[in-house]
């Protein structure tokens, strides 16, 4: 069988032209896809953060969108702070920033740099529970326990702020922490107990 044409100049040009074409198409498609993607899905911004959590300094990289709550739970293995509503309505994510209670779900990690952050994990002294943690155990300050880390962080701040004059005052100043089990009476008793110490 004659192989005429197989190595001909015309054939070479045809094949190499096609190959060049194929190489060109995917890159332009890829670039087009990237352009469209950038328009539709904005590029995420990762930044380097230095945070002081529970008296330990952490340097890490995080998307600018990362909240403190997500950073604790996803990157620092601090899963004590709970994601209840993620919209600042339930208080399950309550932590202390520079000693004051705050919601970690509404705090961008990038904005917490240079501040002293304390989570529920930083409250106890080794195996020695914080007096508020002990009081919650003794007074049945919880049932399922999901809201408890937030309740305890808020309760510690409530005592520090001095809002423990009456049951009504305690309830008013603990209203940012919801408990679906309804352990409120135990929580109020825990706070009264620590306030009296």
């Amino acid at each position, binding site marked *: 069988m004659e192989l005429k044409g197989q190595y001909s100049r015309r054939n070479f040009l045809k094949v190499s032209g096609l190959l060049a074409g194929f190489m060109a198409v995917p890159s332009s498609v890829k670039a087009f896809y990237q352009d469209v993607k950038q328009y539709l899905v904005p590029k995420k911004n990762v930044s380097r953060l230095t945070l002081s959590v529970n008296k330990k300094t952490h340097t890490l990289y995080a998307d*600018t969108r990362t909240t403190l709550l997500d950073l604790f739970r996803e990157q620092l293995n601090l899963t004590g702070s709970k994601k209840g509503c993620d919209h600042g309505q339930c208080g399950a994510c309550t932590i202390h920033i520079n000693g004051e209670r705050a919601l970690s779900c509404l705090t961008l990690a990038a904005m917490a740099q240079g501040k002293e952050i304390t989570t529920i994990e930083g409250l106890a002294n080794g195996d020695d529970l914080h007096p508020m943690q002990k009081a919650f155990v003794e007074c049945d300050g919880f049932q399922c326990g999901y809201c408890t880390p937030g309740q305890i962080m808020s309760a510690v701040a409530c005592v520090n702020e001095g809002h423990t004059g009456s049951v009504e005052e305690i309830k008013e100043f603990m*209203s940012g922490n919801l408990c679906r089990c309804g352990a409120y009476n135990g929580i109020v008793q825990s706070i009264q107990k620590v306030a009296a110490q």
Partner: protein
Amino acid sequence: MRPFNFEKVKSAAEASVMKSAVSQYIAGGTNLVDLMKKNIAQPEKLIDITTALSDTIDDQNTGIKIGAMVSNSKVADHKEVITKFPLISKAILAGASPQIRNMASTAGNLLQRTRCPYFYDITTPCNKRKPNSGCSAIGGANRMSAVAGYNEQCVAVHPSDFCVALAALDATVTAQTKDLKEIKIPFTDFHKLPGNTPWLDNNLPQDAIITHVEIPANAFSRHSAYVKLRDRTSYAFALVSVAAALNLDGKRIKDARLASGGIAHKPWRWFEAEKFLQGKRATEEVFEEAARLAVKDLKPLSENGYKIPMLQGAMITALKNSMNQ
């Protein structure tokens, strides 16, 4: 949440220079971060102004000057605020939770967005969220909506308690414009009614930044009260609220201030009722008449008619409470 660039600025001037239509300032973040999570606010850049603006309260003879970055808690707990402007402290403590008050800034409180359920539900039309898309609340679930100052374009109410007290006490907002000029806006002109631009909550010029809020010295410190009625006793937005302040000469009312939250697109001043009270004796009958005057022209929507008697009662209670001090 849409990805964004994050920049921290050191001064108000630096913030103004950086600000553009696609960027937003962030202070406490208690409202903005939530709006970003729900894709209602989608800034391309966030400008952290927490260290750019004043976080101190200056007590002067002419009044008190509150820095834009002073937290709501700090204002409420401030000694001079409690003694000279107790209404401010009472109103702040009636709002949000201790956690949120610790985070939220003074200027941010003024700039928080409405909590109208349709503003938050991106599947429904809302002129405030998406200009000219329509108002879902006017023919929908409007039990929380306005009873005054609204139009067919928007029936949302301003959610702040702090602002109700600031409106009552004739505060002034100081801001810096994009071209670095200082402007002052009387508080009662700061927030606006929906008009033809319901997507704008206030009259702050585009890209301007609030630097201070000033409250002039007054003679209302001995007789003021804030009554807030809501679905639960604490940590909920107002159905109606009333700030009442009286300047008494014996039993005679020399001057009165009445303002409300949960009523309109802006903190609502009851000028007619205030004028009526002036010069009258502070009696229950006079308070009842003032409250009747206040509510007489209100026009409730399909589901919020209950607000009228509720407001009337809240106003009488607030005036009476302001006497018991």
